[in-house]
């Protein structure tokens, strides 16, 4: 199952404090992107590695970790990437 697969790859590459994955694929069933089988997911990741990095750089780290999964299995990925201190402060 892809959500498990996503979890494994992100845990391995980013060693997050927190990792939550929501599978929204059902909400998008039937539109063009899902016909090829790609799912819609949302991840919330809290990790030290994001410290000092811009949002673009954080997303790029995540995409890199997921590698080939982004080509087929994942059609769309919502990302919420925080450092542990941002999480505590409740900022985004």
């Amino acid at each position, binding site marked *: 199952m892809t959500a498990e697969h996503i979890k494994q790859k992100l845990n391995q590459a980013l060693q997050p404090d927190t990792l939550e994955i929501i599978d929204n694929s059902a909400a998008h069933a039937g539109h063009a992107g899902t016909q090829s089988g790609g799912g819609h997911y949302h991840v919330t990741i809290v990790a030290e590695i994001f410290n000092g990095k811009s*949002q*673009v750089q954080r997303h790029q780290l995540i995409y890199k970790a997921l590698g080939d999964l982004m080509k087929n299995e994942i059609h769309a990925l919502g990302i919420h990437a925080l450092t542990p201190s941002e999480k505590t402060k409740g900022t985004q």
Partner: protein
Amino acid sequence: MDAEVKSRIEEILKNPVVLFMKGTPDFPQCGFSGQAVQILEACHANYAYFNIFEDPELREALKEYSNWPTYPQLYINGELVGGCDIIIDMYNKGELQQALASVDAVAES
């Protein structure tokens, strides 16, 4: 990456603001591209767009060029600003409006 495609990408990125999207602003073919258009419209942005469905080669090459595997992708001054999530987040914080104003890409209302 093919040098010809790369130079085509760089040519497009000379636009101060350009959105690479699925479909066109009038007929977006993906909800995320549609949302990006809505945000840019809400900012009264002057922007160029490129429909990646019209150029499969460039579509693949740009993913590699930017290390960003999905569309839409918004560029300001040749730099990747982000995809849909980041655009919305920046808009909510007023940062997108500032970035657009810094390249004179906001229409007089």
